[in-house]
């Protein structure tokens, strides 16, 4: 990787006509053909990608906002920067990372020592990957872990074969938007039979005001491989509405296993509208783990298309909605082959007037003999102002399928609170403990450092919340 010489990278800064002298570049506010062309030009993309972006833009302009779910009419698409280049380009070692970025990491609670545990760190500071380091053994195995822009540059064939094939640009309005202006994200390829033991990590963040972030992630887990991908999002609080519309495509080939973990803690003015989809082939396993804590409105329904025999899809999610927040999250499991199985576990907590929704779909096609699915949704409503919805749909067109769905909504039991307070805990400590216990089955599945971070966050949010 260090041997890589890329003239194009510096070319634009030195001789390009489109780059202002200021090393940080902001595309004009708002969205137009010109902006899209500009983004593509800055990135020096091949013609097919520019055409793709332009087609996606047309589709975006034609499509309407979804008629269901939370209210999105407050998004002002003309008041958003669609591309922002960070101050510095990619750095290869930790020492080269700018001080300001390091400080933000520090605040996130990512200790220096932890780096040694990370197989590769990708930090998305603003719109592009600002730091990337891959340990040697990963490279020796032939694992590709790059920013999506770099992936396109260095592996054009592989990239073109998979890009946009699972989520076409016409899928929904926000997928169209992402396809038109995408930038950043990760490109991951795990070769046949390779087991990546340590999780691949990426940190995403937005730092500029009114900055839209449109990262695009493309993951291919080849036959018999195993890997985990972890992304965590935090963003500083600012006052104007911001938009995050990512697209994630995951291909799980025969016998492969892939786990995608997201902890989302956007500031409370961000619209988080994400399209995530996985295609799972024979004997493959796809696991989505999803934590939604921040944002103003989240709409996210990761899905698994189980197209091969014995394929398995799994979804574990936690949602936490506080004042003015609406977490509309869920999952889709589409069973298209015999003996496929899936499981969805969703836990949500609403407090201080927040609203959580589970919106999910399980579909069993006629050929999917002996398909099995289990859905569990539990919601906890902590005070009178808060609300919760459960909106599942099951379409079962195969007679041999076995489908279960279960949902409960409740408040914290008086007895539990009484017991804990009688043991000397304050009421807010007791509530914090009960909430931690409630989400524990999912937190257990997170990498350790994330579990700690999440617990710390919940504790912080719960402080003084007894009403």
């Amino acid at each position: 990787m260090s041997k890589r010489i890329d003239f194009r990278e510096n070319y634009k800064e030195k001789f390009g006509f489109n780059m202002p002298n200021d090393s940080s570049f902001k595309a004009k506010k708002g969205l137009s053909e010109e902006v899209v062309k500009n983004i593509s030009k800055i990135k020096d993309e091949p013609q097919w990608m520019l055409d793709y972006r332009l087609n996606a833009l047309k589709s975006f302009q034609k499509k309407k906002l979804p008629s269901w779910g939370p209210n999105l009419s407050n998004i002002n698409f003309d008041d958003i920067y669609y591309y922002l280049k960070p101050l510095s380009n990619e750095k290869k070692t930790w020492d080269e990372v700018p001080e300001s970025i390091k400080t933000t990491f520090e605040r996130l609670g990512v200790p220096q020592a932890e780096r040694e545990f990370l197989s590769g760190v990708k930090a998305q500071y603003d719109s592009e990957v600002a730091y990337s380091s891959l340990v040697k053994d990963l490279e020796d195995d032939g694992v590709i872990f790059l920013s999506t822009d770099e992936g396109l540059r260095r592996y054009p064939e592989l990239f073109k074969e998979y890009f946009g094939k699972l989520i076409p640009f016409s899928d929904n309005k926000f997928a169209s938007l992402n396809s038109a202006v995408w930038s950043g994200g990760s490109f991951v390829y795990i070769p046949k039979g390779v087991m990546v033991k340590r999780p691949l990590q990426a940190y995403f963040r937005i730092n500029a005001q009114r900055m839209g972030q449109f990262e695009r992630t493309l993951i291919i887990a080849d036959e018999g491989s195993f890997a985990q991908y972890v992304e965590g999002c935090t963003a500083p609080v600012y006052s104007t509405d911001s938009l995050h519309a990512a697209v994630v495509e995951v291909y799980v080939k025969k016998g492969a296993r892939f786990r995608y973990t997201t902890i989302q803690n956007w500031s409370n003015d961000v619209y988080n509208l994400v399209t995530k989809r996985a295609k799972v082939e024979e004997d493959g396993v796809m696991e989505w783990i999803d934590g939604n804590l921040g944002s103003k409105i989240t709409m996210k329904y990761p899905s698994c298309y189980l197209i091969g025999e014995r394929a398995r899809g799994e979804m574990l999610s936690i949602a936490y909605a506080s004042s003015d927040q609406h977490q509309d999250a869920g999952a889709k499991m589409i069973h298209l082959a015999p003996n496929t199985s899936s499981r969805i576990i969703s836990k949500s907590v609403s407090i201080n007037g927040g609203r959580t929704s589970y919106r999910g779909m399980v579909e069993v096609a006629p050929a999917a003999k002996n398909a099995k699915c289990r859905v569990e949704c539990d919601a906890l409503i902590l005070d009178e102002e808060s609300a919760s919805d459960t909106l599942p749909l099951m379409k079962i067109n195969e007679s041999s399928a076995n489908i279960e769905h279960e949902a409960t909504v409740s408040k914290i039991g008086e007895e539990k609170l009484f017991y804990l307070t009688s043991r000397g805990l304050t009421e807010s400590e007791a509530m914090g403990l009960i909430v931690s216990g409630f989400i524990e089955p999912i937190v257990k599945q997170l990498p350790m450092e994330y579990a700690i971070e999440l617990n710390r966050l919940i504790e912080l949010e719960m402080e003084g919340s007894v009403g």
Partner: protein
Amino acid sequence: MKTILLAINNLINMKNKNIEENNKEIKVIEDTQYVIIDEENNEEGRILKTDFNLKLIFEKKGVSAEILGIFNLEKGKEIKLVTSTKHIASNTSCNTFIKAVLNDNSSFDYKGKILIGKKGIQTNAFLHDNVLVAGENTKRNSQPILEIEANDVKASHGSTTGRIDENQFYYLKSRGLGEEEAKDLIKEGFLVSLVDKIKDNKIREIVLNKIKSKREYL
């Protein structure tokens, strides 16, 4: 619980149903049990499609209701059922139990809504939707919905779809029952648990008679 069995009559008169009446909201003012069954052995021939909508609204404090839906869908039968319970007074409760057996080519589409408004504190609402698949080429949609705006409530739903248990089937056959007889017995057993909940003796007899197999065994 005073038992008023409205649904059965409604359904029996469904030949002349008009849609507006079908969509009418029923105010629950006293403890009531609603039993929904399908009018299958119609003398004027079989109705293959049934569409039914039951809306209950709880505006009076402390009332409770129970909805029982008991269906054995014969070949080619299609049932579309919507139940909705809206709780806008405190201390109300409603349990909904739906059980359906799907035979060849039948289709069951069920949407069960539980809405609890801000004033619906101390509401107890449960919904169970269980389908036993006994045939091939069946279709089944299930959409249990919870919309809850109050916090001091207990609400849950459960939905299952599964085939006849092979072990039960094998056991019955090993005891000398024929394939059809064993199947019928399992289907009956599945539905009878709801029939037992019916409080009115007369109605219970009618429903029991309906789910019993008419087949003669050798």
